[in-house]
C-alpha cells in the first residue's frame, strides 16, 4: 500500500511553470487537486519535491488547501529528496509514490529507488482507483495499469541487481523488439503516441488518424511500428517511424520503381516506457539498414531541436546522424543526416525486423 505521494509542482500540481509566470501565476491542476483531496480522505500523505524556491510550495499549499507532510525544494536530485522524505516520515520507499511530468526525473528516481511507484500526472489522475491506493473495488483497466507499473518496478529492481551493461541486461530480461509495417488496427494507438510523446518525438506535432490512414495507403510512404516485450511484461506498440521515398506499406509491387537516393523520415516517436530498453536505437538502426537495402545513399531526419527532446538527439547522434551547426531552420528544425555507406548501426539479435 502507498502511504505517501510525493508530488512535483511545475506542470504537475500547477498547470504551468511557477518561476516563468511572473505576476500571472499558474493555477492548480483541477484533476490532480481532486486526487490530493481524495487521497488525503483515505489517510494517504502528500509531500512536495520541486526545483522551485520554497515560496512555490507555500503557493501550492494555499491554492490546494492540502496539508503537505514534507516539502523538499532545491536543485539536488529528486531521488535524494524522496529518500529524505521517507526517512523523515519513517516510511519504507515501497510505501512512496512519486508523480512528475518530466520523463527524466521519473527515470532518475526509478533507477535510484526501484521500490518507489513512479507515475506520470496522467496516471496519477486515475491512481485512486488502483489497488495500491485503495482496498475498494478495482476496475480491470485500473488493475492492468497498476500491473504495468508493478512490472516496471520488478524490471528496474532486476536491472539494479544485474551487474553487466545495458545490452547484457536486455538479453538477460528476454527483451523482444518487433519492427513491422503498420496495419489499420494500429492507427488509434499511433495517433495516441503522436499526441503523447514529447521527449522521444522528432516532429513535435500530432498526426491525425486520417493522415495516418493516408500514409498507409500511399505508395511513397512507409509507416513502421515497434513493439516491445520482455520476461517482465508486454508493453505492446511503443513507437513508430514514417519513411518517405522508399516503398510504402503495400508491398514491393506497389513501390516506386526508380531508385530513390535520399530517404527522409518525417516522424520518429517512442513511448517513454521504452526509454533505456534499446527500442529507439533498434528503430534507428533498422531505418538506416532498410533505406540502404532499398539503394538509398542518405538518410535524413528533420528533428525539432528543443531542450526537451535531448534523448531523441542523443539517439540520432549515436546512430551516426549529424546536422549542420548553422542549419536550424526558423521553425526550430534541423536536418540530421548520414551517408548510408560504411558500417551501419547494428541490429541486436533480439530485434525481429522485415
Amino acid at each position: 500500500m502507498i502511504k505517501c505521494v510525493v508530488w512535483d509542482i511545475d506542470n504537475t500540481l500547477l498547470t504551468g511553470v511557477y518561476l516563468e509566470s511572473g505576476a500571472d501565476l499558474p493555477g492548480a491542476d483541477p484533476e490532480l487537486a481532486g486526487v490530493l483531496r481524495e487521497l488525503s480522505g483515505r489517510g494517504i500523505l502528500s509531500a512536495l519535491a520541486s526545483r522551485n524556491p520554497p515560496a512555490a510550495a507555500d503557493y501550492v499549499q494555499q491554492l490546494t488547501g492540502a496539508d503537505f507532510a514534507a516539502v523538499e525544494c532545491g536543485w539536488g536530485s529528486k531521488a535524494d529528496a524522496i529518500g529524505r522524505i521517507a526517512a523523515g516520515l519513517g516510511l519504507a520507499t515501497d510505501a512512496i509514490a512519486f508523480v512528475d511530468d518530466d520523463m527524466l526525473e521519473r527515470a532518475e528516481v526509478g533507477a535510484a529507488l526501484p521500490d518507489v511507484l513512479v507515475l506520470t500526472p496522467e496516471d496519477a489522475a486515475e491512481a485512486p482507483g488502483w489497488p495500491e491506493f485503495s482496498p475498494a473495488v478495482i476496475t480491470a483497466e485500473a488493475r492492468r495499469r497498476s500491473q504495468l507499473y508493478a512490472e516496471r518496478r520488478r524490471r528496474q529492481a532486476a536491472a539494479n541487481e544485474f551487474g553487466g551493461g545495458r545490452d547484457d541486461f536486455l538479453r538477460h530480461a528476454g527483451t523482444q523488439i518487433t519492427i513491422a509495417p503498420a496495419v489499420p488496427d494500429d492507427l488509434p494507438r499511433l495517433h495516441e503516441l503522436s499526441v503523447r510523446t514529447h521527449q522521444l518525438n522528432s516532429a513535435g506535432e500530432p498526426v491525425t488518424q486520417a493522415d495516418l490512414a493516408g500514409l498507409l495507403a500511399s505508395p511513397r510512404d512507409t509507416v513502421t511500428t515497434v513493439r516491445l516485450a520482455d520476461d517482465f511484461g508486454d508493453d505492446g506498440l511503443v513507437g513508430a517511424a514514417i519513411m518517405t521515398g522508399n516503398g510504402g506499406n503495400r508491398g514491393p509491387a506497389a513501390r516506386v520503381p526508380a531508385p530513390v537516393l535520399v530517404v527522409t523520415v518525417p516522424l520518429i516517436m517512442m513511448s517513454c516506457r521504452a526509454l533505456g530498453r534499446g527500442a529507439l536505437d533498434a528503430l534507428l538502426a533498422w531505418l538506416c539498414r532498410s533505406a540502404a537495402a532499398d539503394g538509398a545513399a542518405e538518410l535524413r531526419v528533420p528533428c525539432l531541436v528543443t531542450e526537451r527532446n535531448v534523448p531523441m538527439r542523443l539517439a540520432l547522434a549515436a546512430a551516426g546522424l549529424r546536422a549542420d551547426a548553422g542549419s536550424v531552420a526558423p521553425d526550430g528544425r534541423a536536418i540530421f543526416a548520414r551517408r548510408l555507406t560504411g558500417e551501419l548501426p547494428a541490429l541486436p539479435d533480439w530485434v525481429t525486423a522485415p
Partner: protein
Amino acid sequence: MLAQVTGRPELLGVPPDTPLFSAGAGLDSLAGTLLLRQVQRRYGVDVAAEDLNLDSLETLGTLAAFIAARI
C-alpha cells in the same frame, strides 16, 4: 558519473579516448541525457543547448574539454 548513469562500475577510470556511444561505454539516450543533467548540475554547463550534434559526447576527453572551455 559515467559509471553511475550506465550502472557499470567497471567504467570508473576508463581512458579519456574511450568512445561513449555504441561499442565503447554503450551510452544510450537515457544514460546520455542523465549524464548531461549531472554535468549541468555539477558544472553549470548546458551541453545540449550549446552543442546541436552533441559531438562533445564522442569520448570522455571531448566532453571534459567542452566543459573545461566553458567554466
